[in-house]
């Protein structure tokens, strides 16, 4: 299948637009701008007519698999349906037309939404202080760990050099620790797939800055010892950070602060239904305890009398995003939370029920390591002799986006399935039926998949070994 760039479809001088006659006097650009600011050559834009533009992008979009076209059980990514009511809120002209340089007095509505969302996230987490600035989960992690680092610096404690991560952690956790200037050490698991508390005890000392825990972890298992874990850390003056990627399993059911979490990030684009995939835009909002609050990014939104204003936290680590973060995502998340209100916990209940339904239906044919009640996602392994990669490619031929594969690393041939709460029983039954059919398909046939997608199987190894990042 050939992929042509839109530029290659153009002809010199062809135009797809007509501009209205200007109602001001036209000036030569050279008379307004200094010579150094002027282009020497025209930009290489596509010169095409409107039908060509529409067809080009429509045809590209038809090659996509996305939540709007198919069930998308990508584990740890919470690909839930994006309610269209969120889009209605985001299209209100007063929000859609905002400029980030407008003065506070003109954007009180937007500040009210941000302040309201800060409050919602504080209530969900039990942690009093919130920043909406980080643009993605991994940036929320980095922001949080930089705050922990600054707190120790502020306290004159120079010996905190290490961040601990369980072996089930997202790869971003040790990467965050490293970017923030810490070393990281890995902790093993107990027989339930949870952090081994005895090993933790032996590793925590006065060099430990924090433990980064994901709860439920990436096996979909609830870290039942989290309260004890927080006590071990706190006794040494270290912090408990929670990676909130899996908050869809906790809403209204588990408040991280009650379990001793000091600081955490949310993924508004996962848990609170704002569109994602393909790299953004996201929002990795963070929430923290009073101890860490002075170090939050600048600015936060505060209520003053009847109005709202931006404030700089006292010992802020500074800005972590241009302007205020991805406001459109905050607005959608605010809308989503308001739509559900106190029933938000039913989101979690249904997400957990759906994951356990899939676990029960696949179990017996697929192997289920740590086969206990799971939370919002479940790890399975293909039957002996079959590869997760081949099953995943087979799913593409049946019209599904594959689940996460080969993660978490602690399970061989892992397939991490997260159905989310927004799918019906019929959708889950169809998916399970396909998975069971693929389990019966011969390995030779599976190796051929996909046969019905826009491309056959891509050579991932060659793509990585001979990376071409430019067309």
């Amino acid at each position, binding site marked *: 299948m050939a992929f042509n760039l839109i530029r290659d479809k153009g002809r010199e001088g062809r135009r797809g637009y007509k501009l209205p006659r200007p109602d001001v006097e036209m000036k030569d650009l050279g008379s307004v701008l200094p010579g150094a600011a002027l282009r020497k050559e025209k930009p290489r834009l596509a010169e095409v007519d409107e039908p060509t533009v529409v067809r080009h992008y429509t045809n590209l979009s038809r090659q996509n698999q996305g939540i709007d076209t198919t069930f998308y059980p990508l584990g740890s990514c919470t690909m839930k349906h994006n309610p269209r009511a969120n889009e209605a809120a985001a299209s209100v002209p007063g929000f859609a037309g905002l400029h980030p340089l407008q003065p506070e007095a003109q954007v009180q509505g937007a500040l009210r939404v941000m302040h309201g969302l800060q409050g919602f996230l504080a209530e969900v987490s039990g942690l009093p202080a919130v920043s909406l600035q980080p643009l993605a989960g991994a940036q929320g992690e980095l922001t949080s760990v930089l705050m922990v680092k600054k707190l120790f610096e502020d306290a004159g404690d120079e010996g905190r050099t290490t961040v601990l991560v369980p072996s089930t952690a997202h790869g971003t956790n040790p990467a965050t620790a490293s970017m923030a200037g810490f070393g990281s050490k890995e902790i093993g698991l107990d027989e339930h797939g949870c952090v081994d508390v005895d090993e933790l005890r032996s590793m925590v000392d006065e060099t430990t800055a924090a433990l980064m825990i994901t709860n439920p972890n990436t096996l979909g298992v609830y870290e039942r010892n989290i309260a004890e874990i927080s006590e071990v850390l706190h006794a040494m003056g270290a912090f408990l950070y929670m990676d909130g990627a899996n908050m869809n399993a906790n809403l209204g059911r588990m408040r991280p602060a009650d379990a001793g979490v000091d600081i955490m990030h949310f993924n508004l684009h996962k848990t609170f239904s704002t569109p994602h995939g393909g790299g953004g835009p996201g929002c990795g909002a963070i929430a923290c305890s009073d101890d860490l609050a002075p170090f939050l990014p600048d600015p936060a939104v505060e209520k003053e009398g009847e109005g709202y204003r931006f404030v700089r936290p006292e010992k802020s680590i500074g800005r972590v995003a241009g302007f205020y973060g991805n406001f459109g995502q905050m607005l959608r998340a605010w809308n989503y939370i308001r739509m559900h209100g106190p029933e938000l916990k039913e989101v979690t209940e249904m997400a957990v029920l759906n994951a356990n339904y899939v676990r029960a239906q696949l179990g017996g044919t697929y192997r289920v390591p740590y086969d206990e009640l799971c939370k919002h996602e479940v790890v399975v392994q293909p039957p002996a002799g079959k590869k997760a990669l081949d099953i995943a490619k087979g799913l593409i031929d049946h019209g599904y986006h594959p689940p996460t594969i080969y993660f978490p690393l602690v399970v061989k041939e892992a397939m991490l399935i997260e159905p989310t709460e927004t799918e019906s029983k019929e959708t889950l039954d169809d998916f399970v039926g396909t998975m069971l059919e693929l389990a019966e398909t011969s390995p030779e046939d599976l190796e051929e998949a996909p046969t019905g997608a826009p491309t056959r199987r891509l050579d991932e190894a060659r793509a*990585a070994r001979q990376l071409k990042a430019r067309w």
Partner: protein
Amino acid sequence: MSVPGDLQYTKSHEWVRTEGDTATIGITDHAQDELGDVVFVELPDEGATFDAGEPFGTVESVKAVSDLYAPVGGEVVEVNSALNDAPEKINEDPYGEGWIVRLRTSGDGPANGDLLSSEEYEKVLQEEA
């Protein structure tokens, strides 16, 4: 899976060939098979020193990034720089052209009592299966 009898092994699936005070190190046939196609190897600098059990580099495949652990302690005297352009040698010939580093071992030979014989390593593989 091939497990040559003249090598020693670690539980983390490295092999080591000791000749005098030189130890050549790579990853096992089982390890390359589990990882899948290797796309990148991060090699240590020559002259760097590592203790036994310390990570000295990483192997990145289409599935995962894994640390490499030194089976014995010592100073890096040579790295297999051919892997920079052809990391697939680890898949094709893990015990030969896919070797990763050579260390000058500290002290008088491998001090690490955790090294496994080929028979012991085969048992580890059976237990993992």
